[in-house]
């Protein structure tokens, strides 16, 4: 029991500083024009080695459809990260979404990449619809998506 508390305290001590330095980051996604209902998106970070790190934002609240974002759902459900506070509405064709997200300072210029997966009912699932290297130089850079995402930009 004592050991567990120590571990918890240690984790808190290590975790808190990175959170404290977290920057308010603006995430902006412009959807392309497509035929279909609003798209579900998962915005998440991968580590340098390509493995899943954490979820940044989820567009679309029903788990029934979140499941369609398969690789993200698979990784995220095993990470046990809660997504209640970082879930918003699905985004329709041609719409723009702008949200404030939390990305820890320490992740910038540390080899992390930001990924957007998209899925549309009766349409396709696009893994890595848009990808952006998380570097200071890329702040505000607009990258085009290859599927339902028209453009993605993040400004720190």
């Amino acid at each position, binding site marked *: 029991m004592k050991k567990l508390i120590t571990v918890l305290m240690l984790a808190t001590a290590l975790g808190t500083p990175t959170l404290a330095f977290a920057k308010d980051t603006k995430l902006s996604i412009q959807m392309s024009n497509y*035929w*279909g209902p609003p798209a579900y998106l998962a915005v998440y970070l991968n580590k340098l080695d390509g493995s899943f790190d954490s979820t940044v934002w989820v567009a679309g609240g029903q788990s029934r459809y979140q*499941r369609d974002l398969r*690789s993200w759902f698979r990784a995220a459900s095993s990470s046990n990260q809660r997504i209640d506070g970082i879930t918003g509405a699905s985004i329709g064709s041609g719409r723009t979404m702008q949200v404030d997200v939390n990305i820890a300072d320490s992740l910038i210029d540390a080899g992390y990449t930001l990924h957007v997966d998209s899925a549309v009912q009766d*349409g396709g*699932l696009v893994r890595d619809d848009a990808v952006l290297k998380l570097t200071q130089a890329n702040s505000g850079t607009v990258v085009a998506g290859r599927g339902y995402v028209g453009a993605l930009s993040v400004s720190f």
Partner: protein
Amino acid sequence: MLRRLHSAPGLVAGLIVAFMAITGSVLSVQPVMDHFAVRSTTVAMNVAALANAVSTHLTGVERIVHAASGAVTAYYDGGKGVAAALIDPATGAVLGDYSPSPIFVFFTELHRSLFLGMNGRFASGMSALALAVLAVGGMLLLVKRLGGWRKIFVTVKGTISQRLHVELARIAIVGLLVSSLTGGYMSLTSFGVIASTSPVGQFPASVDGGTPALISSLSALQAVPLADLRELVFPYAGDPTDVFTLTTASGQGYVDQATGALLNFTPKSVGQSIYETLYMLHTGQGLWWFGALLGLAALCVPVLAVTGTSIWWLRRRNQIKVANNAGARHADTVILVGSEGNSTWGFAQVLHRALVNQGHQVHTGAMNDLATAYPAARHLLVLAATYGDGSAPTSANRFLSRMARFKPHPNLSFAVLGFGDRSFSHYCRFAQVSAAALAEKGMDQILPMATVDRQSPQAFAQWGQDLGGKLGNALALEHVPTFPPTISLSLASRTDFGMEVQAPTVVMRFTLPKREISHWWEHLAFGKTMSFQPGDLVGILPPGSPVPRFYSLASASGDGELEICVRKQTGGLCSEFLHNLQPGERIQAFVKANPDFRPRKGISPIVLIGAGTGIAPLVGFVRHNDRHRPLHLYFGGRDPASDFLYAPILGEAIADNRLAGLVTAFSRIVGGGYVQDRIREDGAAIRDLVSSGAQIMVCGGDKWPRALSKASIWRWPP
């Protein structure tokens, strides 16, 4: 109460419910089109073979979807984003590009969320709830109105709106209930209130990771026939740790792409099975004909919304407001009104006000609202008009049946005042019936039943005095009679008869106002301002008298003319006024329906018997006898040279078979006689006609039919 539970949600949600119904019925076309577009296949392919075939035809296959309609679609990497192809279920060959119909995609989103995200989904769910409430409430209302579940399919009477509303609702009710309940369930699942998905089996923690085997060799996929397949998601290309995700009719699992083993299969939950069944019922996907029926039922909703609103509006417009109306349980005096055209309500209002001024707690309501008891009441005053042939007027048509449950307090005494028109037979018949029914309950009568003829203010005031005397109050009842709003009509032409035989009679034709109603919805909402058939009555207000005189109509409103036949009565205010009227001059008139004096439906023969001006409505029937129903007319006059009314028209009618037989009797010519004589002569023939279902219609003023029956012509020889 029940009515309000039906009308309130209808008014609030009518528009959105109608909107959802229209979009829903558009969507119901999709499964029908899919059904006829998909080729049915007899070749049973297993999923492994199909997936293999598809992956040889297409690159980067992402998933294969087997729709309820039988259509198989493959999503693959089309170079620029995801592309979809339609697959032949029998061979796995590509049939062509697949793109969801933009129209149905648009309507699906409109139907479920109005393009308003979760707020729209909420509105959509609420409209499903509203439709369910309207359907159930409407059904209960109809059962109550018709008097029980067994009578639920009897024909209803009423305005076009009312009949349309009930007829359509009876046809559509089952479909609407299914649509609304399943829709409501789906809405609850999308808000997470009800679970609709099965728990997903954990993604396999460890997979073989070896070289992917040939898809056609994967045993878990071989075991699934195409018919059971819902969806097969392919592993990401080049990721040996990924697996196939297989969804079948019975559950979901994963397939190792190297070994073909089925991993972590989770059977479908009960919640999901229910959801899928209800989804199928709601959308018709997989049950196209049922969806089509629901779509047709939904098409009734806009009409129900419009007719329902117009019914509500009409009732509201006709509602009588009674000032200072006490609650039925607290009133010491209760006034019940049986009225057809609302004129009796005017008398009730005057009586109500006079009693309130004397310090009474008065409750006024329709006779149909008779309570089981009036605990505080001492006096029950019934003002009853009579409708048509002695039957109950609209606001009292359930009075006698409610009487069975009426348990009057021993101290409650009653008085009945009948309203009517002495020129009709069965004068105040319904008032007499009501008085007898109340007396049968053992109640005391405050004063014997009295009557008011043709809204006579004097008779009403007199009754007030008598009643006041008994109650110990001075009741001054001053009532100005009200009649339906009159329309000004101009005389188009007149034809005079009978001058030579001292029976001046004039056939008058008035022009009907042309543009009263120009839109169909005005018909629905207000009906025709002047709509009548031969045999109906026109009330004409002679100058200087508030009391109308009624004449039978010889024309229908569709003829564009209002035709009457008027005999000059010496000293008769109205008949002299009309006899002096010249073409172009105007009268003030309103129409009153006379539904008991109409030919029965069908084509059975009718014996028409008329004397003098009484022939007018009969000629109207003959004129409109386009179906050549056998009509036999007996007409009595004085001299064929002078008062043979309508002689040319009757001649034409015989020539073109609208009149089967004409027998005339003229009293002032040599060898003449009376109609009674002719009927007696034809007694055997008439009796045969009657026994074979013929109807007899007599018109000729009040005294004449009585003379007929006194002449014992109806007592056929045995």
